């Protein structure tokens, strides 16, 4: 769909088009670009006079809620080895796994018109338009369940001063085994006040009915949205990488990928764990604030290793990011001057490697 004026931004296009409701679809499957698109629409489109629906899908990614702790919510080691990125969204709620078999729907309205139940009626209504006898319904926790048991959609929302958005996922044909292995933490002993996720049994819509594929569902969503709210809008495809259309969006995408946002925004937490190293039981106690190690203490049996080794390691870890590569660099540097005596060297190395594994 061509723009009305050659050099207009998305905002100007809507204002000129004089539509009360707009349906958008993102051309990108990059989770950061899509989250940036959501942010951009929330900040720039005037929703006092109009509402919008955005449909988007991402290639494999894990998305945590704004106030969550990624170490607690997902298996960061597995994600790193598989190249699955981690994103933190700006809305609240729990952790979700996205892939191309999952559809994301964002409903943008003014704060006055914010009504999550009405939005979810659009979702269940659209599914029933495709398959009238489908047993789908919204719960009072704003989830959508299939056959009364399986969660197929979760919700989160963001409210600003005058505008709001409500987004939800929809499982069509997601990789369920990858989902469950990635959403299990590999970190023990975390103590935090971060919002926890509530796990539920899930099922794909396409398992229930193979005709329910993502493009059929998105088409039905667009129609149902227009019908429910009395709008008349075609589905407009938007490419979030076009800076000209949405000035400032590239910086938003970059901010969303920054370590300071993804990891550094984790509410203060502590790790209290222990591990076995060369026959000794080592205790590790760390406090992490803004993703940075604020406190580090180790409980090492005195006869096993000279206490200076543990003290030196703790001191070196203070003030660094709680991140395996930063810790690996520190540990590698310390190993250069570690004792060369064979058994001490082995113990020291084991200690260092176990500490890196905690991240």
């Amino acid at each position, binding site marked *: 769909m061509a723009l009305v004026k050659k050099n207009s931004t998305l905002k100007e296009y809507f204002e000129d088009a004089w539509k009360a409701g707009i349906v958008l679809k993102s051309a990108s499957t990059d989770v950061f670009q899509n989250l940036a698109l959501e942010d951009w629409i929330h*900040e*720039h489109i*005037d*929703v*006092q006079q109009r509402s919008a629906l955005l449909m988007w899908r991402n290639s494999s990614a894990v998305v945590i*809620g*704004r*106030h969550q702790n990624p170490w607690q919510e997902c298996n960061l080691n597995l994600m*790193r080895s598989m190249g699955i990125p981690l994103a933190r969204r*700006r*809305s*609240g*709620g*729990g952790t979700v796994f996205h892939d191309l078999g999952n559809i994301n729907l964002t409903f943008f309205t003014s*704060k006055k018109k*914010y009504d*999550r139940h009405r939005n979810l009626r659009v979702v269940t209504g659209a599914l029933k338009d495709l398959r009238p006898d489908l047993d789908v319904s919204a719960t009072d*926790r*704003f989830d959508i369940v299939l056959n009364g048991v399986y969660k197929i959609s979760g*919700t*989160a*929302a*963001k*409210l*600003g*001063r*005058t*505008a709001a958005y*409500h987004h939800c996922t929809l499982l069509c044909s997601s990789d369920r085994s990858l989902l469950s292995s990635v959403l299990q933490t590999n970190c023990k002993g975390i103590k935090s*006040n971060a*919002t926890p996720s509530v796990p539920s049994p899930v099922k794909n819509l396409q398992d229930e009915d193979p005709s329910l594929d993502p493009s059929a569902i998105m088409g039905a969503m667009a129609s149902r949205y227009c019908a429910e709210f009395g709008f008349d809008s075609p589905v407009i495809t938007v490419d979030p990488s076009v800076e000209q259309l949405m*000035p*400032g969006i590239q*910086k938003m995408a970059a901010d969303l990928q920054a370590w300071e946002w993804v990891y550094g925004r984790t*509410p203060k937490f502590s790790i209290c764990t222990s591990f076995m190293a060369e026959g000794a039981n080592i205790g590790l106690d760390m406090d992490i604030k803004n993703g940075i190690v604020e406190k580090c203490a180790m409980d090492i049996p005195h006869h096993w290793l000279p206490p200076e080794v543990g003290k030196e390691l703790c*001191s*070196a*870890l*203070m*003030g*660094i990011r709680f*991140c*395996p*590569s*930063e810790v*690996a*660099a*520190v*540990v*590698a*540097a*310390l*190993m*250069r*001057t570690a004792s*060369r005596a064979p058994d001490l060297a082995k113990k020291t*190395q084991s200690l*260092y*490697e176990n500490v*890196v594994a905690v991240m």
Partner: protein
Amino acid sequence: MQCLHKFCSSKVLKAPFVCAPYSYSTTLLQQHRFFRTSYAAAGPILPFKLSDIGEGIMEVTVKEWYVKVGDRVSQFDSICEVQSDKASVTITSRYDGVIRKLYYDVDSIAFVGTPLVDIETDGGQAPEEDVMETPALSQEEHTHQHIRGHKTQATPAVRRLAMENNIKLSEVVGSGKDGRILKEDILNFIAKQTGAILPPSPFQEIQPPPPAPAAAAKPQEKKPPPSIPTPIAPRPVFTGKDRTEPLKGFQKAMVKTMTAALKIPHFGYKDEVDLTQLVRLRSELKGVAESRGVRLSYMPFFIKVTTFCLGVLTWAAHNIGLAMDTPQGLLVPNVKNVQMLSVFEIAVELNRLQTSGASGQLGTADLTGGTFTLSNIGSIGGTYAKPVVLLPEVAIGALGKLQVLPRFNAKDEVVKAHIMNVSWSADHRIIDGATMCRFSNLWKSYLENPASMVLDLK
């Protein structure tokens, strides 16, 4: 205390602090034209209550504060983030003023209708009122911007610049909080429009050049040195204050290594290597490697030859480290057991380490266990170096820049030669001069006659 804005060309008033704020403003309005700033906080302290979020919600959890006591806020600035039932809500300020009290800690429950913060408002200033020299209405496109759908006045500096240069704020991308337009944004906008070079503002960041991994391909003689994206204003202006920061992390951990390393009696050995034939060989093989998906620099050759020669220095495992400039600093990951790898396999491993290094993903296995290090200082610049042995190793080599220089050939003709200088350092307690000399000569002979490598391939 009160110094009104310097930009105003009419009378600038330096007023003593008057105790009755309302009378102050009305008296002066009649007598003088002046630019009000927001530096007066002499108004009443008002509690800002948590307003109704909607959906019948009565309580929320305070998740994050964006302000602390003593911070100055403007109307519509974000104050805090609260969460209720999977909804994250940004609470914005109703008043301009200074925060005097926060009623809740992070993670406590706040009730709708109760105070969130106390704000000491500006004396007598209602949000929309602003006393300016010129009427606000016709100038709005230069003075007001939309933040979260609401028209907000920009700061005095931004307004002045926008008006003087006839800039519409709606055309400027704001880099401040919530997309607020800052003075720097206007300056950048002007620079883009006119192509002018403007004096840098004191807050301009000095962008470091993108890190060139130390083991990257050596630049061909015809290629210019790696270009650094220059900011518009090439001369950074420093604010002048030295900053002391405690060492932490990797740098702190390396202090002990460096201190110990400098206590080792080093001796250096330098030589010049004619790589003309190697340059030719590599250009022939580059295409083959690329068809296998690998970028072939000179380093894999240097590394393989080093392993051929390490026998001279008596070593078992040849884990050759490469000094690499990464976001974490100068790290030295190593290629393990080079004696068992072909040049191609070394190139593959090198590519993997470079990618991991650039994305900050090098692990302990990559970073430990090195027995010898090569530092490609030439990729950044420089020809000779005096490298320091990296404990617990006993020798290190620094490879200088590859240069095209004239040399005499066997027929006494002057020809074009590709010359690289190499500087070796070794621990004199363990390696003597003659041994180092033999090592270096052998290294040099392999590289000057690459065909001889074929004889010793395993």
